[in-house]
Every structure is written in structure tokens, then in C-alpha cells.
């Protein structure tokens, strides 16, 4: 009695069957083996499960897997291009913008979504752009600096 | 009381004050001249050293 869903994940055509009430996060983690998105709360408050759905940042714990038919899902696993890290990924490593790292995939998704819309954000715009993601280790200082550095690099500045 | 190491101190304390033994078994720390030792019972106690028995504190 599952729902058959045909969708695109990180550019690959994917087919899965899921329960009607099953959230995208559980589909990614339990059915597709993509455990980069984390469940920090299951209520859309922490952003650790952030993915980009048809170009829009969402908490994958708040959308249903059954609704993914014909959509495009981007997760942390698709962010690097082969061996080459995305400038945001590289900046997070270079600027020590992670400690435990469990929030990092969500932050990278959120930062990516922000920079696509606004390639040259102010510090305040970065802070509000990332306000849906919780980090308990860093105090956000190094995360903001990493996003600033990546944005600059991506602009070719 | 004369003791050359933490171990000797604990042994003598337990002998002279049997009430201390459960506390020592439960875990105490020893401050020797301001430095706190928790585990190294062969740590020497220097002549005239200031010795304090302390709560073995937990940490985050």
C-alpha cells in the first residue's frame, strides 16, 4: 500500500516506494541511504535536515516523500562536483566553521540557497539567511566568516 | 599524620578514621600545594606540603 514516487535526487532519476505519511527525511535516510541530512528535531525547528527542493530550501522532515513526484531534490551528497568540493564546503573546512559537524550539511544547504538568491549578502543578511539552522558548538562566528569567504570567491572577487 | 604518597595518606586515613573509607572509595581528589590530583595515587606528598581532600568533581 506504499506510494510509488519518481523523482530526481542530486541529478539522478530515482524511484522509491514510501508510506503515505512518510517524510522526505526518512525516505532519504532509510530508503535511499542518503544520511547526510540529519534529524535534530523532526519539527522543522533546527534545520539539520535542510535540502533544496525545486530550488527552495526546505526542512525535509516537514515535507512528504509521496509529494516528490517529478520534483528535483538536492542534498548535501550532491553538493561537491566529483572530487571538487563546492566553495562553501571548502570554506567551512578552511575557516574551522564546524566542530561536531552534525548541523553542517544543513548549514551548507541553507548557505547555498542563500547565495543563489543573493551572491553578495551583508553579514546581517547571512545571519538572517541562516537563522533557521541551529548550531550549538560554534557560536556561528566562524560559520558566518566561511559563508562570507565563499561568497567572495564565488563572485570571483 | 605522616604520609609519603596519596596511597599512604588514604590508607592511614581509612585506618584512623574508618568513616572516611566509603568517601575515599566513592572517589575523592587530593590537592597537593594547589595542584589537584584525582587518580595518581603514587604521587609523592612533599615535606610540609599543603594537602586538601576535595570532592571529585564531574565535568561537561
Amino acid at each position, binding site marked *: 500500500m506504499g506510494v510509488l514516487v519518481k523523482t530526481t535526487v542530486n541529478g539522478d532519476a530515482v524511484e522509491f516506494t514510501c508510506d503515505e505519511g512518510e517524510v522526505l527525511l526518512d525516505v532519504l535516510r532509510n530508503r535511499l541511504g542518503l*544520511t547526510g541530512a540529519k534529524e535534530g528535531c523532526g519539527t522543522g525547528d533546527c534545520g539539520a535536515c535542510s535540502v533544496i527542493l525545486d530550488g527552495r530550501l526546505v526542512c525535509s522532515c516537514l515535507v512528504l516523500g509521496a509529494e516528490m513526484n517529478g520534483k528535483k531534490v538536492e542534498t548535501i551528497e550532491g553538493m561537491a562536483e566529483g572530487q571538487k568540493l563546492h566553495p562553501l564546503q571548502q570554506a567551512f573546512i578552511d575557516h574551522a566553521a564546524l566542530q561536531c559537524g*552534525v548541523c553542517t550539511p544543513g548549514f551548507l544547504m541553507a548557505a547555498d540557497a542563500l547565495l543563489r538568491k543573493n551572491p553578495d549578502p551583508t553579514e546581517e543578511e547571512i545571519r538572517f539567511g541562516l537563522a533557521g539552522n541551529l548550531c550549538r558548538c560554534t557560536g556561528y562566528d566562524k560559520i558566518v566568516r566561511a559563508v562570507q569567504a565563499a561568497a567572495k570567491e564565488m563572485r570571483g572577487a | 599524620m605522616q604520609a609519603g604518597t596519596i596511597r599512604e595518606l588514604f590508607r592511614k586515613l581509612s585506618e584512623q578514621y574508618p568513616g572516611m573509607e566509603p568517601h575515599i572509595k566513592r572517589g575523592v581528589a587530593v590537592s597537593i600545594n594547589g595542584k589537584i590530583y*584525582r587518580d595518581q595515587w603514587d604521587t609523592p606528598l612533599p615535606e610540609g606540603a599543603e594537602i586538601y581532600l576535595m570532592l571529585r568533581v564531574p565535568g561537561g
Partner: protein
Amino acid sequence: MVTLNENNNPSEAAAPTTSEPHVNGTHNSDLVKRDFKVIGSRPRRPDGIDKVTGRARYGADFNFPGQLVGLVLRSPHAHAEIVKIDTSKAEKLPGVKAVITSADLPDHTGGDRNMFDILENCMARKKALYDGHAVAAVAAVDAATARKALKLIDVKYKLLPHVTDVDEALKPGAPLIHDNVFTEGVEPKPTKPSNWCKRAEYGHGDVDAGFRDADVVISRSYKTEQTHQGYIEPHSVSASVSPDGMAEMWMCTQGHFVFRNQCAQLLGMEASKLRTTSSEIGGGFGGKTHLWVEPLALALSRKANRPVKITMTREEVFRCTGPTSSASMDVKIGAKKDGTITAAFAELRFHGGAFPGMWAELGAMTAFACYDLKNVKTVSKDVIVNRPKTAAYRAPSSPIAAFAVESAVDELAKAIGMDPVDFRIKNAAKEGTKSSYGPVYGPIGIGPTLAAAKNHPHMKAPLGKNQGRGMACGFWFNFGGQTCVDVNVTPDGFVNVAQGTVDVGGSRASIAMAVAEELGLPYESVRSNVADTATLGHNDMTDGSRGTFSSSMAAIFATRNAIKVLRERAAKTWEIPVGEVEWKDGAAHAKGVHHGNRPPLTLKEIAAQAGNTGGPVAGHAEITADGAGVSFATHIADVETDPETGRSLVKRYTVIQDAGKALHPSYVEGQFQGGAAQGIGWALNEEYVYGKDGRLQNAGFLDYRIPVCSDLPMIDTQILEIPNPNHPYGVRGVGETSIVPPLAALGIAVTNATGVRQTHVPMSPPRVLKSIKSKAK
């Protein structure tokens, strides 16, 4: 052509010499002043790529083949007798493979009260002691079946009156939570049980006389509310127990060796048969130093004879795991007009949740630790309430006590018309000061942090409308503990390190740096991994700011032992005495007139020949890393408080702390910033809210709001390096102290912004608004 020294038989030369004992727990402290090549640089962390690509595996990212889903049934009542639990319907549900209650967890603790408390906290026995206390657990083929099974368990409760407030719990006639707790530390020994589990007293001198000598005495009461460590990763454990008693566990923990030992004891297993792997850990801050569901997963797996995975929900994390105490404190301090403190007193009442704790006592020890006081006395009262068992949270209790004491110090400085920084400098503890908790201090770092604060540009920056500045000091003990490290040279000439302390903030990088430094190799040649409990000796947890301090110490000693082996191998290869071989810059060098012109033998060359010179090259160290050295910090905070709403925003924040020696400065800064941010959350917003029914009202991140990115400014850091003589590189633990000053620094800042002394943390908008309005009346 170099001739062999014929007085030395090469085979003798290669044998271990008595003049160079196995390095274990000793060091050469003059190395502290050496020029470092790797230490102090900022290389990339070895776990970086895995963490930015989603490959890193945390607690919930692991699965055993054929595993079951474990779920826990929790008491909805704050205090209730468990009259009967009927699990028969749940057991009959198809797909349910095991149901357990406390009957499946017999007492193996042998009279050890602490272990029994852990056992009873993991699964309620006769009574449910708080909202969320586990009463039963199930393992089923999937989550839906497990959820159904929980609903089929019939628990008959007899409700009992409850108490969740620390002061109420002390009152005569308060609901009694344990009938076997008699106040420790009072004479005569009480004959009746109570919720007051322990009294302790610290201090010296004569405080009454000291107060009589004072020109000004400040006296006030303070409160702080209960907070949670708020790590982003909920607890998750996967356990697999075989019928022959062999077992495996994968979990997120701050100490997999300690968890193994405790789980083995609670389950009546042999520790050697329980192999435990720590996953990447998604934050802990003390909350992952305690067992919660791990023994339940083992018990379920044992009963079902299948692997079982339990992953907590966020709501469970809030309702059932490690919050701090909430506290109520009275502080009195007196000073002369010249700024000399003549006496200081505090009574601290903290709760340990539903079990006896020593949290108030920790507050009593740390409260006045920053100051040089002739007359000081602190009294602690540890109290039991119907809330979850208190767990350590980063420098446990110290931030609470510092809030009260530093606020009082600020008020007193103002009352005698002295600058609060100068007042603290005048009274700061220094080498030779008798600390308020007993011992006399050696060289300590409070003075330098205060001097740095006084000279910091932040202290002189102008403030805007409705803005206020506060500064405060903080103290934490730090400790070391049991630690071991293996250093293995690989046949291709690189180095693998096995550390036993869980990496919570970059310690794998820091420890690899220390090993590279000792060997004279580039950082990239060394990789450190966290070993599981079957492959390395016991290690204490990553707590007490000990992870990098103690594992880097063990790693340095282990590397020195490996270097000794490397020198022996070079001596064998060269057929010269080992005494004529020295190690520098990643290679063995023959020294002395006879051999000086030999080309050095690199680590790579020695590794390649290892099979012909005696086998694999390795070094080990097993140490008790005592002598961690106490830690101090000074913070400066600017806030803007909206007088209409009472909302406070942090505008600028500076952390100044002594790191001894910063192995990897970025990670030291990260600890400073992270601790400050947690303290800011505690100061301004975070609190457990209990209803009259004794139930937690805000068990989620929406209503228990931790600081988000837009709540905070950049957090400036200043690392002071006053070498710790007890570590070969001078390292001091840095993880915890940074959470100590923020509550007070912000309390003082909001006081200065509003003109009303803030005495109750968190200073949430309604609370601050109320304080402003009460003053206006």
C-alpha cells in the same frame, strides 16, 4: 668511511637501555618554551571532508543488519507509584520481539548508590520520579509496530504529590521523593528522610568579623533556571547481544569506554565482551556523559536476540536527559572603601533532579574561586525534585554560582565608587592565594585575563542609547584522568594514531599535530582515529576539558616511545650504538665524530626496513593525566535592551581566556565562542518551564529557543598563553570555562542598560520588562 665503535656490540646497542625508561607520565617541562613547527598552526581537520559532504556517520547513521526499532514508554506523571505494568497485549502484537520493564534489569550494582541511581534513572522501578521517566521499552520490526506496542502497555499509576521547585522541595511537608535519603553533612545525622540530600561548607577565616570590618555590605538573592545542553544530535544507540554473551554497541557518547564499563555492570556482562564504538558525536557538552537509553537497547537486544536501535526524539531529549540544576542563591559581600573585600558569603541551593547530586556543592566550591579573600564561607544545599536527573553541562554549576557572585561584586564595586575591572583586579586571586575551596593557588591566569580586559578596546568603545556593558570572570577546575594512545608507523612511512577520547571539537587534528611535532613530520603525515573499546585500553570520557589536554599528553609520550624504537632500528641498520643516534626532523641522525657524515635515515626508510630490524614500529603510552591546572576567563558583553519589550540583543562580545598553549588556535577560539554562545542563550532566553502538573511545557526547539545566527554578533576572542607546567607543551583544558562568565556579564550589562539590577536568569523579555516596571512604581 666511518668505523664502528668496537666497544659496543651492535646487538647490545639495539636492546632497550635502562638509562631511557619507558616514558610514562613524566615530561620535560622546559620543552614548553621550545619553538614549535606544527603546534600553533591551523591545519585542516581530518574529519572535515566527511562532515561537509554528509559522509560522516553519527549515532543514528549506523544500522545493524536485521535490527529492530526500540522505543521507550515514559511516565506522563511527575511523581507516581507504579502499581502494575501489564505488557501482555504488547507482547502479543505481531512484529513485537521484546518488551522490557525494570524486572528485566535486575540490580547488579552491589550497593553502589551512584550506579543504582543510573539504573533507576534508565528505567523506573517502584516509582516514576519525573515527567518522562522511562517505565518500559519495546523492540519491534518497525517504528509503526513499536509505537502501537507502546500504546498496548498498560501501566497502572498511583499519583503522588510532586515538587519541581528547589526552594519548595526544601520546605517541611514537601512531597518526599526518596524515603532513603537522609541529609549528609549535618550533625546530628537526621532521623527522617528528606529532599535535602547534602549540605557542604567551604571557606576560611571569620566572615562575621570580616563583615564588621566592611564599610559597605551588599546582600541579595539570585535565581537561575534549568537549561539543557541542547546538542543538535539526539541520542542514538544500536546494540547487538549474541546468545554467547558477546555484544557490540555503536552510539554517540562522550566516553565509549565508560559507557561500556557502566553498561556491562548494569547488565551483568563482562566488559571485555562488549565492544563499543563511538560514532561521530553531534554535540554533548556534558549531556552525553550519562547513560540514558543505552542499557535499554542492550536489554532489549538480549531479550529479542536481535540487534536493536534506539534513537531518541527531540522531545525525549528535553524531557528525559541531562538538564542543569535550577538554583536559588543568597550572596553577601563586604568591602572597605579602598576596594578591599573583607568578607564574602553565599548559600547555594541547587537541585539534582530526581536523584541526589553534588551540584550545589560544586557551586559552593567555584563561587568565589576568582578572588583572594581573607574571610569567605559558602554553604551548599543539594536538593531532590521531580525533574529529570541533572547532568553535567560544561563547567557544571560554575556559571550559576558566577552569575550570583559576579553580579554582587559588580554591585559592590559601584557602591564604593570603584571601576568594576579595577575592583576585580584589586581582589583577584594570584599565586599563593588560599582559594575559597581550600587549596593555595600556584601560578594562575585570572590576573592576566583582567589586565587584558582592562586594556581591550572593547572596554573603551562608546555605548548607544539603551545599551549597557558588563564584564565578569569565570573559573573552572579542569581535570585529566586515565588516557592511552597508540602510535603506529605504517609500512609506507606514515603514522596512525589511535586515541581513546571522543573527538568533540577537533581533537583528532590537535593530537595528530602533537605527534607530527614530536616526530618532526608534516601534519599531513599523521592521522588520528578514535579507537573502539576492543582495540585500545580504557580511557576516561571527553569531559572536564580533558580530551585534548590528556590525549595530546599521552600522544606525545607514545610518540617519544616510538622515537626510541625508531632510533634503535636506525642503530641496528647502521650497526652503531643507539646512544649515538638522535632523532630530529623526521629522521634518525648518527651523531658524534665516528658517524656524523652518514646520511640520515628517514622515517620512511626505517619503516620500509622494519620487518628486518625487529618488526612493526609503534609507541604506546598509558597515563593518568593529573595536574590539569585550573582555568580562568574574563568576558566583556554589550547589550541593547528595548525598554518597551524587555528584549535584549547582544551587540558586542569579547572572550579572554588562558589556553596554556593553543595547539590549534582555531579550535581554541571555537571553544571560546561556542561556550560564550551557550552562556548567552542561558542568560537571555533558555529555560525549562514546568506546569503546575509537574510536566515540562516546552520540550522542543521552538519553545526552548537556543540562540540562532541572527541573535548573535561576531564573538571576539583573545587567547592568552600561560604555559601549564604539567603538560609537555604547556596545554591547559579550554572547553568549559568559556560558559562560566556570560550569565553574569550579560546580567550586569542588562542591569546597566536598564538601570535595574538583574537577579533572575534567563533575562527573557517578560522578566526584564517586569523588573523595569517594578522599578518605575
